[in-house]
């Protein structure tokens, strides 16, 4: 019989006390004192070369001539790299083999990399690059979705997802509506731009520091470019200054060039894009054009819905397949469509290849159905919240268009609670009243849900590895395949490991992600960082813990159930000893104190050819209420108050999670309001710096901003029953877009659905206001 002391210890252990705490970011003190090292801060080895990338000035052209002889002989130049200088494969694409590191016989977007110059200084490299003789023969450039549709230029066949007979159901439905919405792209605007530094090693090997969310992929691509094996390349990253998906596939270009230069010259080489080059050369969120139609009954319940999703993928495939798949997956957002037909076109254009961005197509997918909800409500004269509630997934209404049954929907309870805590109904009434007496300024309010599927939809990516060492002084070194870009992954996983050993967090040292520590990792993406790496680290730590338990049983003659770890102390039967003492003794008894851990997500499967299966392990939910005001003379607008209730399961670290929610929301708000990518008719990006591309500033944050965490555990067995949090909150910002729509609709007495495209800049809002006024006067 265990005595009561032990029982207490175990009870305490059952209640995790490091996991679940609001522990500060592991690098917080270094961040605030300027001591956190980013790649550009690492002291450069002497003789480090600086690299400049020369870019195509044409959107689509044959490359008739690329003469770099004058560049080669320019002052300070150590080497010039063109396609001909790549010993291995001239490609940095993640999947398709269609992203040349250096252009060969054609260029396909303005900004495409032509060649690289490595020189003693960046100024020399840049100046030298201008000496190249480049001759183009222009070819017709397809720049927009419309133009690509016209030219029938696609990257892969259009995909279709079906549930029942949508066309038939819509035709039969008592009411029908349709609409079109254009949704702009978004630049990631991570504060740290793309960068890589490479140092040559013996045997033609290379060490690469890369600001990447995907070290393993960078490793593979660098090795392929050099024509060497993966084991000759180590890719390392301690932290990024933001990623948001922009550093999932794009870093390979910088890393490959830096590695090529380093190996060729035998000198370290660094390639850092300045802000303009970064914005021009690297991919962004896909912009979309969506046509939707719905059939519904007098209560606003959907009978069927069709979506025609068209996206601008840019000149190459990148991850566009999965991104557009995810747009399809989220066309339903949180709603049961009854019958659905979702068609998705992946258009090729002569613009930069668009890439992953927080939400990965999901946000674009959700916009149309939320537009439909607003339109239905306006047509019925109903509160849009009621229409939304009436359409949620629920018992018996739980089948998604891709065949997954929604088992875990908490959207209804969550939205109802939020409606109550935010006083949504009363405020809506007050706003309608206020608008009657305010001719110039108009307000709007909207409550929208988010249901976001968690897992990589490419099933094989849902695996992770970790490495844990326990040293004889009781300190622990932790390494895993996940990368740190500010989201707090390192601290969360460290919390898990500290929890397993019952030791304080200070004893766990988190080390830079590196391909020679944990191999074959997936990108830190799809919000999966802590789900996957937390589990892998848990596995590794538990293996060592089990060995320690076995040893303790032997040593102290107790049963395994009598061994527990807490407060830096191990209780083994009647013996209590410091953790490090147990470790020391285990070492002398030749117990292995290092382990790798591994995890793969259970239950998921997906047949992409039919678009059927269970792509997601679970869903994360959330909802937001936004109140906005617009100026109907200028279109200027403001988000005044936001209330969020978000589901992170049982939070591993509430402070970190709240940070993700708030930051994600503001980023989504920027996407839908002020952030506008403008290309000219030559395919040149006109908004390639913060002077013209406007992400939210401090004062854009709503003055009144309330965020709460939903308090239920994940019903699936995830790491301590938590849920992923990286991406879902971004889509809470759709409530801002809906609220703006409502505000615009007020000028037509809420009878006309405004045509409003995203981003809702002052210009677009004014246009929508004038349009509603004109239509309501008719």
């Amino acid at each position: 019989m265990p005595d009561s002391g032990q029982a207490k210890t175990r009870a305490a252990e059952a209640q995790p006390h490091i996991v679940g705490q609001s522990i500060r970011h592991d690098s917080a003190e270094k961040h605030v004192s300027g001591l956190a090292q980013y790649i550009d801060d690492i002291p450069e080895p002497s003789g480090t070369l600086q690299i400049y990338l020369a870019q195509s000035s044409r959107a689509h052209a044959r490359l008739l001539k690329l003469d770099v002889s004058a560049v080669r002989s320019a002052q300070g130049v150590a080497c010039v790299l063109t396609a001909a200088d790549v010993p291995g494969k001239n490609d940095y694409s993640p999947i398709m083999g269609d992203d040349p590191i250096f252009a060969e016989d054609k260029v396909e977007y303005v900004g495409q990399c032509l060649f690289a110059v490595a020189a003693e200084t960046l100024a020399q490299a840049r100046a030298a690059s201008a000496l190249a003789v480049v001759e183009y023969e222009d070819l017709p450039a397809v720049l927009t979705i419309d133009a690509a549709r016209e030219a029938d230029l696609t990257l892969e066949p259009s995909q279709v997802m079906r549930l029942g007979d949508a066309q038939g159901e819509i035709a039969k439905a008592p009411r029908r509506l349709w609409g079109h919405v254009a949704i702009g792209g978004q630049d990631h605007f991570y504060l740290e731009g793309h960068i890589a530094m490479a140092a040559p090693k013996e045997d033609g090997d290379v060490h690469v520091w890369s600001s990447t969310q995907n070290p393993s992929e960078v490793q593979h691509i660098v090795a392929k470019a050099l024509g060497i094996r993966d084991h000759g390349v180590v890719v390392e990253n301690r932290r990024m200054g933001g990623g948001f998906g922009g550093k999932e596939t794009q870093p390979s270009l910088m890393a490959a060039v830096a590695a090529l230069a380093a190996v060729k010259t035998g000198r370290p080489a660094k390639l850092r894009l300045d802000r303009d080059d970064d914005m021009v050369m690297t991919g962004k969120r896909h912009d979309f054009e969506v046509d939707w139609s719905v059939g519904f009954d007098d209560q606003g319940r959907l009978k069927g819905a069709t979506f025609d999703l068209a996206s601008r993928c840019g000149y190459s495939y990148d991850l566009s397949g999965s991104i557009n798949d995810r747009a399809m997956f989220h066309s339903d957002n949180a709603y049961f469509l009854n019958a659905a037909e979702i068609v998705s076109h992946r258009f090729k254009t002569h613009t930069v290849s668009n890439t992953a961005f927080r939400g990965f197509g999901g946000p674009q997918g959700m916009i149309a159905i939320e537009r439909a909800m607003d339109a239905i409500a306006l047509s019925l004269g109903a509160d849009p919240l009621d229409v939304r509630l009436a359409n949620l997934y629920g018992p018996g209404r739980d089948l998604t268009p891709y065949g997954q049954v929604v088992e875990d929907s908490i959207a209804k309870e969550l939205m109802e609670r939020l409606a109550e805590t935010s006083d949504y109904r009363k405020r809506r009434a007050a706003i309608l009243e206020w608008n009657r007496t305010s001719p110039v300024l108009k307000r709007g309010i909207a409550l929208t849900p988010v249901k976001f599927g968690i897992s990589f939809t490419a099933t094989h990516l849902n695996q992770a590895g970790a490495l844990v060492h326990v040293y004889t002084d009781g300190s622990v070194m932790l390494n895993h395949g996940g990368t740190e870009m500010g989201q707090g992954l390192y601290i969360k996983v460290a919390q898990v490991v500290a929890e397993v050993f019952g030791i304080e967090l200070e004893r766990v040292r988190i080390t830079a992600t590196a391909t020679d520590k944990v191999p074959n990792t997936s990108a830190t993406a799809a919000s999966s960082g802590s789900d996957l790496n937390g589990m892998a680290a848990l596995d590794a730590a538990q293996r060592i813990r089990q060995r320690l338990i076995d040893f303790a049983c032997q040593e102290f003659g107790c049963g395994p159930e009598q061994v527990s770890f807490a407060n830096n102390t191990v209780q083994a039967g009647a013996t209590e000893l410091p953790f490090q003492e147990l470790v020391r003794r285990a070492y002398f008894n030749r117990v292995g104190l290092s382990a790798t851990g591994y995890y793969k997500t259970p239950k998921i499967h997906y047949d992409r050819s039919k678009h059927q299966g269970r792509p997601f392990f679970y869903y994360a939910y959330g909802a937001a209420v936004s109140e906005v005001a617009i100026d109907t003379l200028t279109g200027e607008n403001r988000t005044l108050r936001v209330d969020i209730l978000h589901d992170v399961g049982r939070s591993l670290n509430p402070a970190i999670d709240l940070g993700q929610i708030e930051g994600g929301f503001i980023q989504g708000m920027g996407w839908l309001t002020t952030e506008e990518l403008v290309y000219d008719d030559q395919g040149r990006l006109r908004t390639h710096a913060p002077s013209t591309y406007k992400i939210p500033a401090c004062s854009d944050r709503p003055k009144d901003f309330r965020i709460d965490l939903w308090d239920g555990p994940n019903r699936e067995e995830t790491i301590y029953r938590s849920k992923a949090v990286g991406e879902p909150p971004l889509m809470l910002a759709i409530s801002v877009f809906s609220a703006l729509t409502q505000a615009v609709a007020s000028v037509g007495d809420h009878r006309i659905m405004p045509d409003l495209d995203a981003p809702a800049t002052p210009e677009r809002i004014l246009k929508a206001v004038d349009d509603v006024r004109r239509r309501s006067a008719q």
Partner: protein
Amino acid sequence: MRETIRFLLDGEPRELGGVDPTLTVLQLLRGPLRRPGTKEGCAEGDCGACTVALGEFDAKGKVQWRAVNACILFAPMLDGRALMTVESLKQGDALHPVQQAMVQTHGSQCGFCTPGFVMSLWVRDQKGAGCDMPVEDVLAGNLCRCTGYGPIAEAAAVADGLPKPKTVDQASALKALDVAESLGLAWDDPQAGRTRRWFSPRSLAELADLAEQYPQAVILAGATDVGLWVTKQHRALDTVIWIGDVAELKTMAETEAGLRIGAGVRYSDAYAALAERLPDLGEMMRRLGSVQVRNSGTIGGNIANGSPIGDMPPALIAAGATLTLRLGGKTRDLPLEDYFLAYGKQDRAPGEFVEAVTVHPAGPDRFYRVYKLSKRFDQDISAVCAGIALDIKDGQIEAARIAFGGMAATPKRASNAEQALAGQAFDEATVDLACKALETDFAPIDDMRASAAYRMASAKNLLRRAYLEWRGEASTRVLEVEALDA
């Protein structure tokens, strides 16, 4: 002339010679000085990741700190100043309260913007220039892509409540730098094979001489435009004459003709006086650039620059202003609007420079408005900026001065609209006519900030807004509304 730059770093004197005078302070810090804590996010003054603090003597002889963007500050502009960076703040192992507060509120995620925020908050903590504003304004020049700003704004409040550490007054060290002799640098650019020159004259006479001697020199004030020529356009500047140490140009004076603002007066120093006289101008200036930009940038530079999208010209043309130019020993005055001749062309002779701008006083019947339209409220270049000044007596418009930025190739008066208004009753019909007249005044263009159609439509609506505000019947300021209580 003195050939080395003298400044304080962490309160300690430093001397710097033999550097490219257009090396930025950010490059200097991250390179030769090996202080990589200060980050580059944009190299154009827009993100604040490079924010550092510059200390200089204020009018009362005390050290006043200002947050500035190191990425567009040239190294010689450190001369005679005290520099503090994010690495300067810890005392031993103890974080400064603003650092401590940032940690406590979870104010950093990826941490890349953090050094800049910390410096903005530190200067605020020192009651530095331009910081007497709500915290959102103080932080408008610092972009963060991760946090959503809440925790950072909260850190400001938390820091306010923390005990202050002892700070060392840098006044005597600053005085001891001894920079009375003017700075003059010559640096051989190995790349271009040319000599680059820099002058920091310390008197108006010296400046006038140098400007005549080097008529092709770039006259530099705050470098919030010129800095970008170097960091973004990669232009090599051969000769630079900086006016930042010319005492006579840094004064403001009440004269008979109005408020005379020297060409070296920075926005943040002129703000209070202008905002008091013309509250709407103050509101526009609150949104112009950011604390960092207003701490470096000058009104004179905004005018001299001649940009069609500068905000001060339309505001000041409407208010009525005279520009004073100097060539050698001679000055001449001209109405501000006459300075702008055509796109990229101003009425300024080689060797001539802007000495001051005088803002005329307004009579009691003056109705004055400035409206700045942009995609984002803070720190965004205007799509359209309107300055509207109407003298209205008994409902009759006696005189109208209206000027727009963003509507033409220069800042320009809307003379036809002015005519439609002058002498008329201020009513809807008159406003409609004035709106119509704008179509003959302007043919705006499409660009990434707005379409021609939006520019025209919103310009008209700004006249309507002015009318509604004069009537005082409807609320028209979206920035002033707050969420409704249920």
